[in-house]
């Protein structure tokens, strides 16, 4: 019997772009599109686009977020519009009663378990939902990433208005997206989390918008090397 596999919403596009795939926790992920060194160099010099849709995306709604984050991570929840690193997760506060937790693909299940266990011990309604499969997650990585985003979205992506570990919700290329900034070392990086069904459209539209600044696809291997 064929072994269980999972595909991101960008699978067909990545295959068409010549991606080589690798398996991570059952997900078929694009490992690289061209030479890894070239992909890394493009991201460092200008901007590159990568599909990290397999990353865990868990939303939590309810009024006990502080208690929950304290119980799970011994950390305070970040302020609205900000993110914070936690053990094997990043926490992003969308509203006073709405938190987004992102994780690596292999940490989703464990994180959900921890959250559900902690929530069960708390009073009041807390809804924890795994949205991993429902959201595409595209990352624009590189010094020109803010410029490319500025062609698709009216927000100010300047360093003062949108610092590292900030989160905003806005329209990007006429689609609703959660935008996270999580720099990779010194390299600016923005993630776009939106409807999985629009992932392919978004990829194509972002690629087109960044054509003149040399936007190129970036595989997982190059991302890890950044």
């Amino acid at each position, binding site marked *: 019997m064929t072994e269980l596999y*999972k595909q991101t919403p960008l699978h067909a596009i990545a295959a068409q772009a010549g991606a080589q795939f690798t398996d991570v926790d059952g997900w078929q992920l694009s490992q690289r599109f061209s030479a890894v060194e070239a992909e890394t160099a493009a991201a460092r010099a200008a901007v590159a686009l990568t599909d990290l849709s397999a990353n865990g995306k868990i939303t939590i709604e309810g009024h006990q977020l502080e208690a929950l984050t304290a119980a799970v991570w011994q950390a305070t929840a970040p302020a609205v519009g900000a993110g914070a690193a936690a053990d094997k997760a990043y926490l992003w506060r969308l509203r006073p009663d709405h938190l987004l937790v992102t994780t690596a693909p292999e940490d989703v299940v464990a994180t959900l378990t921890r959250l559900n266990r902690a929530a069960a011990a708390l009073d009041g309604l807390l809804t924890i939902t795994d949205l991993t499969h429902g959201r595409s997650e595209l990352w624009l990585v590189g010094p020109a990433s803010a410029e490319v985003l500025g062609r698709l979205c*009216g927000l100010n992506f300047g360093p003062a208005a949108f610092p590292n570990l900030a989160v905003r919700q806005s329209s990007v290329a006429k689609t609703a997206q959660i935008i996270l900034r999580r720099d990779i070392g010194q390299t600016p990086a923005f993630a776009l989390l939106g409807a*999985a069904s629009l992932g392919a459209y978004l990829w194509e539209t972002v690629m087109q*918008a960044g054509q003149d600044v040399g936007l190129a696809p970036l595989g997982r291997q190059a991302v890890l090397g950044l």
Partner: protein
Amino acid sequence: MLNNALYRLEPQAGETIDRAQTFTFTFEGRAVIAHPGDTIASALAAAGVHVISRSFKYHRPRGVMCMAGHCPNCLVQVGDEPNVRACQTPAEPDMVVKPQNVWPSLKKDAMAFTGLFSRFMPVGFYYKTFIRPQAMWPLFERILRRIAGLGKVNPATPPDRYDKQYLHTDVAVVGGGPAGLSAALAAAEQGATVSLFDENPQPGGHWRYALPAPDDGPLPDLAAQAEAHPGITVYPETTVLSCYEDNWLSARRGNRLFKIRAGAVIFATGAYDRPLIFDNDELPGVRFGGAAQRLLRLYGVQPGKRAIVVTANDGGWRIAAGLQAAGVSVVAVVDERPESEAGAVSHVLQADARVFWRHTIRAARGAGAVEGADIAPLDAQVRPQFIAGDLIVINIGLTPANGLLYQAQTKISYNEDRAEFLPETLPAGVFAAGRVAGSHAGATELAEGRLAGRQAAAFLGLAPAPPSAEITALAGQKAAGPKRSSARVDVPGSQKRFVCFCEDVTDKDLETAIAEGFDSIELLKRYSTISMGPCQGKMCAANTIHLCARHTGQSVAQTGTTTARPPLAPVSLGVLAGQNMEPVKRTALDAWHRANGAGMMVAGLWMRPEHYGNPPAEVQAVRERVGLIDVSTLGKLQLTGPGAPDFLDRIYVNKWQKLGVGRVRYGVMCNDEGVVMNDGVTARLSETTWYTTTTSSGAGAIFEWMQWWLQSGWGGEVHVTNISEVNAAFNLAGPRARAVLQKLTDADLLNEAFPYMHVRHLTLAGVACMVMRIGFTGELSYEIHCPTGAAHYVWERLLDAGRDFGIAPFGVEAQRILRLEKAHIIVGQDTDALSDPISADMAWAVKLDKADFLGQRPLRQVAQDGPAQRLVGFTMARPGLVPDEGLQIVRPTAAGPEIIGWVTSSRHSPTLNQTIGLCWLPAPLAGQPGATFTIRMNGKLEEARVHHGPFYDPQGDRLRI
């Protein structure tokens, strides 16, 4: 090949061309030599081509007048693109440039005769002449459309690439001249981020081309400083088009539109050369001072060989000296001032240059291009004297480029002393500096720029406000500075004297219009179309105000100005549209569908497989064996919390409190007017977890609708989460569906263990899925919801498992037939914005006896009064006839057919081999099964019969096997 050495000078300081390289392009079929850095117009001027196009109405020859993109006189067709400004467009190798408004050629234009009949074609001529006889209008229209318009569009041209860029900046500086540069530097020095927009390739403004060329000076230094400053971003070749509230600007560079949010805006937009109205004032060879200087300094091109300089200020003398130094013979300088008022016009002109004080030009003379000018004293009534020359330089003053300041709601008034419209009161956060604010001396331009930069920084709280004494002192310096502009806008004459070069409107036309009663400036504009052409008033607006004032006996201030509207400069629709962004939703199986021969269709934002080649065969597969359809597009909402049933009770017309865990119910949702909004099934997964599906197109709107009610006070102890895309969904339908599914799971699927309208969590081929046993198709069917990432895997496993049972994928068309055979409605197709569920044959779902719910009150009324129209099934009397959806149902009456209903769905049923459909009928007729009525098809009335209930398996036995 045109000789480009005819007018090309030795290299000039600061020129933009690269003489080391040459290339050619064609103009009207002839090769023109150009250098990189040349514009089309400069290359043509270097080759001695002075006539570039013809005018819009009278087809008069036109050539470079402003060399700044401000007039309409150099519009050409470049390849497929019409209305390209030759003076602003870089020449490129192999470009194909053609003149506009000419036929068959620029020189011998067949329509040039229209000028002879100008007296019969006054302003408003079209409106007056072609209104009668009315029957002739189609003919007139055809002819006028052929003659009118600018340039030619080729609809077959492939679309270009366009995009938009949002910019955010503390301070936006519009204009990169001396004032703009110093403003940008001053603001940046205070810590502001500054974006500087300049329409030219390099910053510097009029200092880049002013004659005589400065040996050095502050300009190069300022430009370099601005480029190097980390807080300043310079946007060259960028034209700011508009200014809206809260400092929201738009600008264009090439095919890109910038949308700019600025904390403060400094307008240092400079000024345009002002035309003087005289006989033949647009004859090729009449050029503004700015054009002569630009040609000479930026492109190393002599603007003519023998120049007559007409001026009213010292600048004209400097231009004359500069021309002379460049080898142009200055034959006359005509200054309307008395010699005593002139400043240090000490530049030495050649001995044979004639100087005329208190004189002005009366007419340009020449056949097709300037051959000389008539000169006359201002005061005395004497015959003008003719002076031969091929270049007339008009340098009588400037019009401040205040269009954006107007848009920014600046109060601008006419300054009689300076003879210019100058800003009086600026809105908060808006500043003006340099020529647009009336500064004409280099030192005041720089000082005013610096001051504006500091004021902008202070406005943003980055620095203390400059002392008011400094502001007052600068105003004093400006007032004491040299006057630049003449109050004179025209001189007497008897021939064609154009005020508006875009639409060939003369001063006589304006006089006539005013005499006809169009005597307010706004009416005059609309009637004469003045300021509505490609120059957008830059050439004509100020002079029109003066003429209007004179003819109405008012002052210029009383006459007022027209409203300045965006865009300030022509902008293509492509630039406004930007990058093509049309979101398309694709399911996780999109690539599979395409690879397997699906004909895709657009359904809302979704792409869905309409069929896989043969919809009737797909229907047959479901009815006889088993079929599989991708219904991932369904909306899916998760409700959690103990308050969920209460909330559902309020949102749906059905009851929910007693739905047991593991059960599924079909629900209908109405708005507060009792109109059907959506439908779908809801499953109770646990005591506090519910799973609701909505129509594919309704997911987002229904989620928002629920959120709206949650936040309006119905949200006690319930959360709604949109998980539409978290799960993919497939419908496995047909008598063999159970057998197929059983191959992927050990769970008991028999009727007793998993009955109709129930939900189960099953592991299918190792994937945790939620499966609902429901039946839109009318067959035993399972709606399988699995994680979207595993969709491809699960789909393939289902097909593998079904191979032995003859499984076939089916598309939307087959699904539509299948559901119609069961008389199931589609919300939005069979219902509209007036349909209530009682009339739509779903009264069984409406529970009027429960507590308040959306639509309860109006539905009570319908229940009490009975519906006026009803949705029912129908069959056609004549076999093979399938009426189009939307056709009218009519009743013949003595007065003609009366519309009594309409068809909402219809198909040929392959299962029943007959036409079936749904339609709206008057309730009494709809209530009689078998009653006949008529549908109007192609002008004929075709008989149909009322049918109640499902057409296929009316008892629903097949769902429960």
